[in-house]
């Protein structure tokens, strides 16, 4: 398996969407390729970091204000 072929399956591997034989092939490639190993682990970490950190928070005060406005408008329609 080449690195390009590995990369084409990267998302499915991360999302746990590969069949057992394909997974075995991918793991075989990983054992001999440090580059793909790093790409896999840091891509996983990228997703994890974006999931974990709230980068656009909705403050409570604003939230309440928006709720009031939404419900008032809905009642009118």
């Amino acid at each position, binding site marked *: 398996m080449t690195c390009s072929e590995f990369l084409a399956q990267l998302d499915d591997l991360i999302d746990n969407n590969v069949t057992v034989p394909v997974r075995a092939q991918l793991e075989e490639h990983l054992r001999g390729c440090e580059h793909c190993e*790093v790409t896999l682990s*840091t891509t996983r970490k990228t997703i994890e*970091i*974006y999931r974990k950190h709230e980068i656009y928070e*909705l403050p409570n005060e604003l939230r309440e204000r928006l709720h009031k*406005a*939404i*419900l008032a408008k*809905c009642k009118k329609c």
Partner: protein
Amino acid sequence: MSTIQTQGTEEVHPDVLLVNRARAGDMEAYEKLVRQYDRQVFRIAQHITQNREDAEDVVQDAFLKAYEKLEQFQGNSKFYTWLVRIAVNESLMRLRKRRTGRMVSIDEDVETDEGSMPRDLADWGPDPEQQYGQSEMAEILRKTIQGLPPGFRVVFVLRDVEGLSTEETAESLGLSIPAVKSRLLRARLQLRERLSRYFRNRSKDGVK
């Protein structure tokens, strides 16, 4: 010994019950739906418009529009997916208003090789986030994701941050499943490449 029940009834998603009550005029039920999804709608709107005021307007307009169209909600997709589609459209409309004259679309495929082949191959430390404070970290993540083309950004956000499936993401954005898949891969790789600048294992390179 417990027995496995094979005689199951089709489970109704709790949102569908709330939608039905809201359709019958129960505002409390609708408020519950608003509370459940307002943060997600706000995040998605922020990611697309990159403007706080616009995102606030999108939250209001999306929930109002969803309420007006509640009769049209079929129940064959999730309420959340349906709402996200409305929120994405509202966000794009706001974006177009601000950038008059400039085409804003999430449909066009972006021709770029960036990130299609990883270049930065340095490993990251075991806990790369530890090097940065909470607000500094948020700033790095914001700046990094803002650098992606809008069509990649929104696919990554829906799929990886908000947890929609590939099919739901495709449905929300009106894209084909292969288009979602190809954008997701490139979005993930581009973000990884860009974050490497901040998180690469420095001690290994001898850079202090």
